């Protein structure tokens, strides 16, 4: 049976990913620092509560993971408003809470689990990020969003690019799903969220995820937003060198 790890499993997207992977026959570990992750009850899904941004809690996840892994979905992350008018101290707090936390929650589980993808003889890493990292092209972007949060979303693309290159020879495919806002209680509670901005459904992103891990794509940023097809398109002729 194939195995998958989903971080940020308690959120709307993470739950949808866990469900879709389990429905596709994967044995899924769903990790989140939110204890409500324990409420996921479905055959094939094991919820794990731990803070993935803290190295001393990583063992909670890795001890439960088998020696080989097929799919890692990096979906963990937090948002907080960070207006430029906030105080110096608030800037420092935001740096820790949003940027440091989001980058560590991407990096630490990946460092711990990539060797297991390699040991598996290959697999897929799918990193979740925002459609705000793709060209606006007249599409609405989140004009008021936090600088710290946006930086953390761009960082995901840096990781995707570097990992796709480095892990090509190990047959580990690395792609980013760059998605618009998800209809969820979280987005609706955001103080600075632009409600004119259309939202997409988590289950549709999960469909795209399954298509992605059944493909040979690597190093791609897959965009999905309202009005755009939720299915994979053929890759362009590579203008970049993806080598091992």
């Amino acid at each position, binding site marked *: 049976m194939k195995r998958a790890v989903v971080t940020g499993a308690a959120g709307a997207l993470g739950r949808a990913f866990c469900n879709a992977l389990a429905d596709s026959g994967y044995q899924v570990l769903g990790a989140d620092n939110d204890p409500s992750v324990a409420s996921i009850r479905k055959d094939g899904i094991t919820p794990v509560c731990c803070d993935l941004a803290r*190295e001393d809690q*990583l063992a909670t996840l890795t001890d439960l993971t088998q020696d080989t892994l097929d799919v890692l979905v990096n979906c963990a992350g937090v948002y907080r408003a960070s207006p*430029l*008018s906030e105080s*110096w101290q608030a*800037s*420092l707090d935001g*740096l820790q809470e949003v*940027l*440091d936390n989001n*980058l*560590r929650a991407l*990096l*630490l589980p990946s*460092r*711990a689990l*990539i060797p297991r993808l*390699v040991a598996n003889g290959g697999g897929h890493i799918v990193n979740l990020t925002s459609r*705000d*990292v*793709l*060209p*606006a*092209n*007249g599409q*609405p*972007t989140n*004009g008021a*969003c*936090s*600088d*710290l*949060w*946006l*930086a*953390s*979303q*761009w*960082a995901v*693309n*840096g*990781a995707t*690019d*570097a*990992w796709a*290159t*480095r*892990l*090509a020879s190990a047959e580990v495919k690395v792609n980013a799903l760059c998605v618009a806002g998800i209809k969820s209680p979280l987005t609706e509670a955001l103080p600075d969220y632009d409600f004119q901005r259309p939202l997409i459904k988590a289950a549709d992103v999960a469909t795209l995820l399954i298509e992605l891990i059944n493909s040979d794509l690597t*190093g791609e940023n*897959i965009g999905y937003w309202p009005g755009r097809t939720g299915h994979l*398109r053929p*890759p*362009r*002729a*590579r*203008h*970049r*060198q993806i*080598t091992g």
Partner: protein
Amino acid sequence: MTGGAVGIGNAYAQALLTAGWQVSVCDLREAVEDPATFNSEPDRVLGTIADVSDPADVARVIDNTMSGFGRIDALVNNAGVWRETNPTDSLPKTLDDFGAVVGTNLYGEFLFGRAVIPRMIEQGSGGDIVNIATDHMVTCGTPWDVCPRGPQCPFDRAASGFQGPPRPTGGGGSMDLYDISKWALNGLTYAWAKALRPHNIRVNAICMGATDSHMLRGFHNHAPSPEEEASWMKTSDAAEMLMDLLAEGPSGRTGQAMNACIGRPCKLEPAHTQLYVRDEDIA
């Protein structure tokens, strides 16, 4: 100017001084305190030894600058470091590299931005923030079917007839933390550009490819081959790019990442159609 004792930053500082600016420079290196490092008279340049990833140091640099010059019209976020990092690195190595690379390249730029922005807003006369990044991040991750540049894309070999070598990405994949830190700067650049447009503060990024800098010479253990050395861009050309950007003034471009890499001229490209920010978001 952060990170100005050597390399590209030093060329930036000297170009600013030549153009008549007073320049406050910080660096980890002691040479930053010596005006001779910048071929400058002592009253025009202010050097502070500081670690840009340390909030207390950042606050001290800005306090020094304000007490020395009384105002800040431009911030050049240049300080940066690289280390070889790999996705299969151990956790302890990763945490150490994370503090050095992400701390300097990303947290340092964020901290300087947040320290300077309130002062620029209070001054009420606009200003410039220039984030120095890497060409790794503008080699394009755009889904092909929405790429607005189309045949003009300088990296699309089939469409543009670009004859150079395929663009390697991300330092061959051995610089993931560097890439994480530098790509993230796009987020700061675009978010700040939008929010600061009403204050006439422009925010742009210059994404430098291989330049004959202290960092790149370090990458080659200070013994590059003559061919490599000859291919590198020159710090003096990089400095000219910065000065051309600043010369545009308040009506110039904002929210753009300009690319300079081997195979393209090292000069300020014309302002292009907004890629990542809608025009109306910064109008």
